[in-house]
């Protein structure tokens, strides 16, 4: 395991027809230490997802460097696991086959794989669902399978692209607790993209608020709530006055940015 170092990262999309360039990311600099929990927030079009795709290796940056430890990130890899908004499960496979997909692709020992699958299904709360077809699962169960599928590969960094966006408020809170538990137990580096300010505050040891045109890190926070969330109920944390204060501050910030986009457009 190693640190994720991002220096002077730029990502420019050029429209092949008009030649117009859009600076999705410009001069992004940060260092994410091993085991840190980072949440990224920002208005639509600020480059959150682009940043995540670059880190995952789905896109290659136009300039700058991105390193996980000593290795330059150029392509997708098992050391960076990804959880998508809709789960992106393989619906033709049952739960266990979804979870051990990565292991099967690496031709891991079958008995060992089965053991790992059991362990992770148990942790995400899906013990006994091994043979259930995934198309029969509810949205929240699908996300649990997606988490297990990612974790069973033992990645260094876990990237989550609005993982709880499709869930209702109650199951969302349960999943937030689960993510915090997993973070604590596994000590993985986690980056979460979210639209929800509350979620960003709860699931962010560090929090980047990004701004659009060009996409950049507008403000960075270091927050205590994720650490607290491991012991205190999330609902109680939300009641705290300093939680409310930061929430209002960020909401105003994002509101202003949205206003600016509307008037500029």
């Amino acid at each position: 395991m190693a640190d994720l170092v991002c220096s002077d990262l730029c990502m420019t999309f050029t429209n092949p027809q008009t030649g117009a360039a859009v600076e999705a990311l410009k001069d992004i600099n940060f260092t994410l230490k091993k085991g840190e929990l980072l949440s990224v927030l920002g208005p639509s079009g600020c480059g959150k997802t682009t940043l995540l795709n670059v880190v995952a290796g789905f896109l290659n940056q136009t300039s700058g460097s991105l390193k996980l430890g000593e290795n330059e990130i150029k392509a997708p890899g098992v050391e960076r696991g990804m959880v998508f908004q809709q789960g992106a499960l393989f619906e033709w496979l049952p739960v266990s086959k979804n979870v051990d997909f990565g292991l099967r692709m690496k031709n891991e020992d079958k008995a060992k794989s089965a053991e790992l699958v059991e362990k992770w299904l148990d942790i995400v709360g899906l013990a006994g669902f091994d043979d259930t077809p995934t198309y029969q699962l509810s949205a929240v169960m699908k996300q649990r399978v997606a988490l297990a599928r990612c974790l069973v590969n033992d990645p260094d960094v876990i990237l989550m692209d609005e993982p709880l966006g499709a869930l209702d408020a109650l199951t969302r809170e349960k999943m937030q607790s689960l993510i915090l538990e997993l973070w604590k137990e596994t000590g993985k580096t986690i980056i979460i993209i979210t639209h929800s300010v509350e979620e960003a505050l709860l699931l962010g040891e560090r929090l980047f608020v990004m701004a659009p045109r060009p996409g950049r890190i507008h403000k960075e926070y270091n927050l205590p709530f994720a650490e607290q969330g491991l012991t205190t109920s999330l609902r109680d944390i939300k009641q705290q006055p300093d939680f409310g204060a930061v929430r209002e501050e960020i909401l105003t910030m994002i509101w202003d940015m949205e206003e600016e986009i509307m008037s500029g457009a």
Partner: protein
Amino acid sequence: MLNWISFHRADIAAVIIIGLVIAFIWSIYVGRKETILRETDEVFGDPERTKGGWYWAVCGMSALMLVWFFFSWGMARAYFPNAANELCQIGKLNEAVSPIKATLPIESRYYKSTDIVVRNNEQLDALYARLPADAFTASEIAQLDSIYNTSKGLITLYSDPANLADEALRQFDAVANQLDGISDRLRAGPDGLVPSAEASDQPPWGVTEDEIPILATSPRGVLFDNVAVDAAVIAKSYTSVRNMPDEAGAMIADAKADIASLKDANKSSAFDEATAKTRNDYLKAVERIFRRLDDGLIFPAESLVGVHAAIDRLDDAIGDAKGSLSFVDAVFMPGEGVVKSRTICTEQGSARWLPKPTDVIATLGRLANPNTDEGGGFKGTTLLWWKWLAIADVVDFLIPDGLVDMLPGSYGTHDATGAFDPNYKDKLLAFASGEVSLGYVPMLDGHIWDSLFRVLVALALGILIGVPLGIYMGVSRFFKSFFDPMIELYRPVPPLAWAPLILTIFGIQDDGKIFLLFRVVFAIMWISARTGASGTQLSKIRASHSLGASNRQILKNVILPNALPEILTGARIAIGVCWGTLVAAEMLAGTTGIGFIENVARTVSDYELIWVTILIMGLLGLAFDLFMRLMIAKLIPWRGKG
């Protein structure tokens, strides 16, 4: 057993029809009850409302079968087995009096005499209006005028009742009286008449090739049959009556002399070619019209009134004698009814081209009989059976002889003693060309199997080649751009447009048809596999990359299963299109297959056989589709739920 069923098909139909009526009424009863029960707690438009309802399927099928029985005259044959025979006898009577009716305004609008008068007057006037004056001399023109006047005069002469000979009048009266005599006999009824022994031995209606037994099998039939014989004699005497007034003889002789002298002038004189042709043509036209007037077939309208009335009375008498038969004829035999012509009576109307269900099954039974020596099968091939297939023939088909030619070394030669010792190449050639006996395996055989075999081989080839290509085209820019233009160019061409070319290149055997079907299947499979592959969600591909899968693994484990629903839907469509194209291809050329049977049946207008082939194709198509539905349910339960 089969023969017994075939012979009693009318009785069997009678039982089936009763069963169908019961099923029809019962299913409506059950259906109504069920509908009333469920109507209270269901909302219109709810898809749940369409679930179930098998009794309506029973209702629909029995209704269809009843309609079929009705329009094919199956009901008439089942419940009124003598009706067709009796109508056939009436047909004989109608045929006998038809020469009389043909001259009267019964089946046409005018008396035949009126038609002759009007037409010839018109043609005469038209002919003389275009008389080529410069081709004839003045005296000749005078002769032509005379012929014209004589012709006109003859028409006037014939049409005047005052000129009609007493002899002709007497003859007409006699005909009318004789017709009345027939009418009286019909009204007297068939008492005491018995069908002949020969008639009773005839096979019943619809069992043999000539549908309706021709000899009268019932007393009423015998009455019509007997009367028809006399009517034929009366009709003959009627048609021999001539209207030849005394003055006519001299006029006809004069005109004939004029025509003869004009003809002679044409022969002897030396006219130039164009003039000679004009003269000849004109004279021919004049003579043609005159010939229609010199045989005394024009009668004054009044003279025919008596016969006309007698025929009307006869028609009434026929109607009375028919009695209940009129009802059966009108209700249960839609169309023209039974018509006698020459030596047979035939069904005319919907029953002509819509064979009775029991006859279709009888034909199917005959085709399905695997013993071709006993008249089973079609054109020496069974419908669906098995045979011993020589393995050597398969080897011959699979291994091209040219493969052996390519091996090193050369074939053996005969030695000095004239003996030939085969070397290894000779032996391999014998093997490859199927000359080595390798034993036999049981194999399906027959027209249905030949059709199925072509479809299955084409499907297998089309799927094996089309699916991988389609998937690669869905994921690779090179494959997509390289193959897209060529495939898109040939794909829109209707399959049958290729048929003449392909059949020319490959011949009329299986390979030509398989290739034709292959290109149909290939296009569909390729396009569906491609759509399926390119429709894979990006997030699934990215997830697989993040999970460490290689490109090959993603292709096999993500893109292929993801495209499976599209591929199976494509296969389902391909089977349907393939089946349709096959029959058309078999109709173009070939010696076996369902389409071949139908094509032969078409050329000989064997409607039963045509319907049998339609039935077989429908059932096989249904079987194919049910199989594909089962496959889809088994293989891709996640479809639409991902």
